[in-house]
């Protein structure tokens, strides 16, 4: 009996519990795996000079509900890393806007030096697509740097 008990004790000591010292390593491994494999659906920034405004407000909308339309200095229009002609905007945005249940918010990111004719045409295309909510994306102008009268 005494011998058997001793034998049991020894056995239970060998596989007492799951080794927890490497648990953190496993957690980190999982974390890094998911960090590396996650892909964010976002278009790349186009090279533009941002317009600046003091009244700039943050847009309270989910990223997936915002569509960026970039207008570069030469007047070319880009959406989701693709070049579009001005006339293509209505047929492209129209179905997108309907699919989003009219939640889509258009963020116009135009170069500050672009001629207003481009912006007006873009607005007319958006109106034709039925879009209502539009934001002129701007950088917040620092009050300090602006000369006060």
């Amino acid at each position: 009996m005494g011998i058997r008990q001793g034998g049991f004790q020894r056995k239970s000591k060998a596989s007492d519990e799951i080794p927890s010292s490497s648990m953190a390593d496993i957690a980190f491994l999982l974390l890094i795996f998911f960090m590396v494999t996650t892909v964010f659906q976002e278009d790349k920034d186009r090279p533009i000079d941002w317009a600046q405004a003091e009244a700039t407000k943050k847009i309270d909308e989910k990223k997936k509900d915002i569509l960026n339309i970039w207008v570069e200095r030469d007047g070319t229009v880009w959406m989701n890393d693709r070049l579009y002609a001005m006339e293509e905007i209505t047929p492209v945005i129209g179905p997108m806007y309907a699919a989003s249940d009219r939640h889509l918010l258009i963020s116009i990111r135009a170069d500050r030096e672009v001629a207003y004719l481009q912006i007006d045409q873009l607005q007319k295309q958006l109106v034709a697509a039925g879009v209502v909510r539009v934001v002129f994306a701007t950088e917040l102008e620092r009050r300090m740097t602006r000369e006060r009268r």
Partner: protein
Amino acid sequence: MAVLNNKKSKVNDEIPSASMADIAFLLLIFFLVTTVFPKDSGLAIVLPEEAETVEVNQKNILHIIIQPTGIVDLKRGESTQVQQVRPSDIESIWRQAVAENPLLIAAVKTHPEASYKFMIDVLDALHLAGAIRVSLQLFEG
């Protein structure tokens, strides 16, 4: 002497590594919480619905005409008198004008060749003054 030395070295042999992971997680969570992603920001406007034209009494319109040079011409309602101002002056002008006539609508007419930034300057001033009824148009003639 030798025995004493042995005991001492056994006590603080190495840094305890059991809590290292906890420290790492703490740092991770700290940075997760303190990181702020740049949010989109800008001037929000509402575009009119298609074929939505509203006749507005001329005296309720403040015409803001933006020239290619960035100079802003102001024209009040029916009067043909044109006043040249800077975009930064519009904020106070709008506040004054809307106090006189609460039904006032700002018609921002931008010349096709004027830079986008001039229109943004004017729109910025109007937003700062709390203007809601703003109409963006192309200046013709």
